């Protein structure tokens, strides 16, 4: 009888232990999944933020007339990778989502600096363009009018002198 009770106790203990191990395993794996999901969500949010920052930089460069064609190619590429990261996240493939979100961010490393360089160059080109083509040509036109007036006055004097001599 005692042996029987011992066996029952031993079996129930083993089952309880297995149950505890199983529950802790399931909880642990759920925690791991939740943590990867959070990581993926954060990586995607960060990549989205980075894209917005880069878009603002490129929009600023565009506003001053910079050639942003090359920048847009990179930005579209990063946006495409981010779209795929969002899709992977939607389907629960969080590891792949993190990988793609990081790839998207990597493609935009030093993007803002490049946009700023282009913006600076465009602003300088714009300044010189304004100076030469607007200020320069207006001053040139004024000079032509003034020069024409001076030449006309000089020629008129000569004409009147010649006329008075002739008279």
């Amino acid at each position, binding site marked *: 009888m005692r042996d029987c009770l011992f066996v029952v106790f031993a079996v129930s203990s083993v089952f309880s232990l297995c149950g505890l191990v199983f529950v802790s395993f399931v909880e642990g794996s759920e925690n791991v999944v939740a943590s990867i999901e959070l990581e993926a969500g954060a990586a995607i949010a960060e990549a989205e933020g980075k894209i917005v920052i880069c878009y603002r930089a490129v*929009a600023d460069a565009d*506003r001053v007339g910079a050639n942003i064609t090359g920048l847009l190619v990179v930005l579209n590429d990063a946006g*495409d990778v981010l779209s795929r990261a969002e899709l992977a996240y939607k389907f629960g493939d969080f590891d792949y989502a993190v990988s793609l979100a990081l790839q998207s961010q990597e493609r935009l490393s030093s993007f803002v600096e490049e946009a700023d360089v282009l913006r600076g160059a465009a602003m300088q080109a714009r300044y010189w363009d304004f100076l030469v083509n607007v200020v320069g*040509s207006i001053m*040139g036109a004024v000079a032509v009018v003034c020069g024409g007036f001076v030449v006309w006055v000089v020629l008129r004097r000569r004409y009147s002198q010649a006329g008075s001599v002739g008279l």
Partner: protein
Amino acid sequence: MSYREYTVFFMIVTGILALFVASPALSRLLVLPRTEFFTEFWILGSNHRAEDYPFNITRNRNYGVFLGIGNRLGYCAYYVVEMKFRNQTQPAPNSFNRTSSGLPSLFSITAFVADEETWELPLTFSFDYRYNETLAQVELYNMTANDADLDMHGYTMAWDSRSSGFLGNLFFELWIYDAATSGFRYHERSVGLWFNMTIS
């Protein structure tokens, strides 16, 4: 040549010369301002024309269309194209109320387009579906769009006796990033294609 004729001739020559010299400045100053700012959004068939759109769909067969955006907004724009699918009973984007469809997006496509530029995406897609004889409806499983597998479980199409087919509408909504609100808003543009899911 009289004195008066000489004066007029001299003034004309000086004026023409002054205008010629000032032409670079005038070309920048005398420009009519743009008054219309808008975005073009289109879908073209596989031969890059507004014809030969796919309609009768065969299971797991690839179809191609071109999706395009033309930016005439006056600035570089950040667009997102939301790809959605619906049957005849589900809500479409409303062009009168200028609202988007409330259906969930299957896939988002990002596009950055400079002012006065166009953007185009070749889109290849296929559908995997089956005919449920008990419910007399077509049930979608999966859609592949440019190598991206999209889950289509829950999308069904009932028999439409008027069109004699199982009709589904693949449509694209255009959203634009609004710097003022730091978020996307519906840009009141959508294009789409109706499909008849054939059962062989």
